[in-house]
């Protein structure tokens, strides 16, 4: 028997096993009647997180994105200027630390091998 024939045999067997539609309808009605009486007590969780913690949504939304952008801008300016300086007063010109002129930043060849970095 080929695979397809075997699959069809399985389908036919299982569908016949499920019973005819009218049998199922009768069964459904019987079960519905059985569960229409008084129902047992529901089991509620003893401890649950406050709803606000369960309602967190991580999907992007415009107000949240705007808030995030504002925080980023504030963080950028505070990082550049610091809390102790105002934005209007520019920093003094950078001071040369080497003091040796252009020659001090020239990399010398290594004395022994002559290799340049």
């Amino acid at each position, binding site marked *: *028997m080929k695979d397809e024939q075997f699959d069809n045999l399985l389908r036919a067997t299982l569908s016949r096993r499920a019973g005819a539609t009218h049998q199922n309808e009768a*069964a459904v009605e019987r079960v*519905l009647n059985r*569960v229409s009486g008084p*129902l047992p007590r529901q*089991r*509620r969780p003893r401890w649950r997180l406050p709803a606000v913690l369960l309602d967190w949504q991580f999907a992007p939304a415009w107000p949240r994105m705007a808030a995030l952008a504002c925080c980023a801008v504030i963080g950028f300016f505070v990082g550049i200027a610091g809390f102790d300086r105002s934005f209007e007063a520019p920093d003094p010109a950078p001071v040369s630390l080497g003091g040796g002129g252009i020659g001090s930043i020239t990399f010398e060849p290594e004395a022994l091998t002559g290799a340049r970095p």
Partner: protein
Amino acid sequence: MDESDEALMARVARGDQKAFHLLARRHLPAIVGLARRILGNAAEAEDVAQEALMRVWTYAPRWRPLALFRTWLTRVVLNLCLDRKRRARWVELETAGEIVDPAPGAGEKAEAAERERMVASAIDNLPPRQRSAIMLTYGEGMTNAEVAEILDTSVSAVETLLVRGKHNLRRALGSMIDKDN
């Protein structure tokens, strides 16, 4: 407009019996059919369907919509059926041989019935997970992804279960399948 299963479950969680009955009526045909396919016994299938609905009612306040309600309910029914089959193995009256009808064409009918009885019996003897995969795929017409979600496994694992299940069935039904060739 019909409420979604998840919305009805939210109402059931608050103790709404009307929502529970709506949900029961919506899903009962499917769960009775599934239980009958697995158990092969109408009375047992009704008991399982009732038990599954009672679990829906009882555990509704604890239910979280992490998966589709239908998937969760199918898993509950499947586990209840497998538990029953594990607890008691009996010879089902419905699968017993039938008296041969002398009417024309009765021979072919009886032969087909006998063949289906053998296939059903071979399915019953499969390991539980292989049986579940076969039932859900060929009986319920579910996709491998849906079966994987219900069995809490991966799609490739479901494919393996199906291949092994069918291999075992072919081995069990060897002579019958050879006869048809």
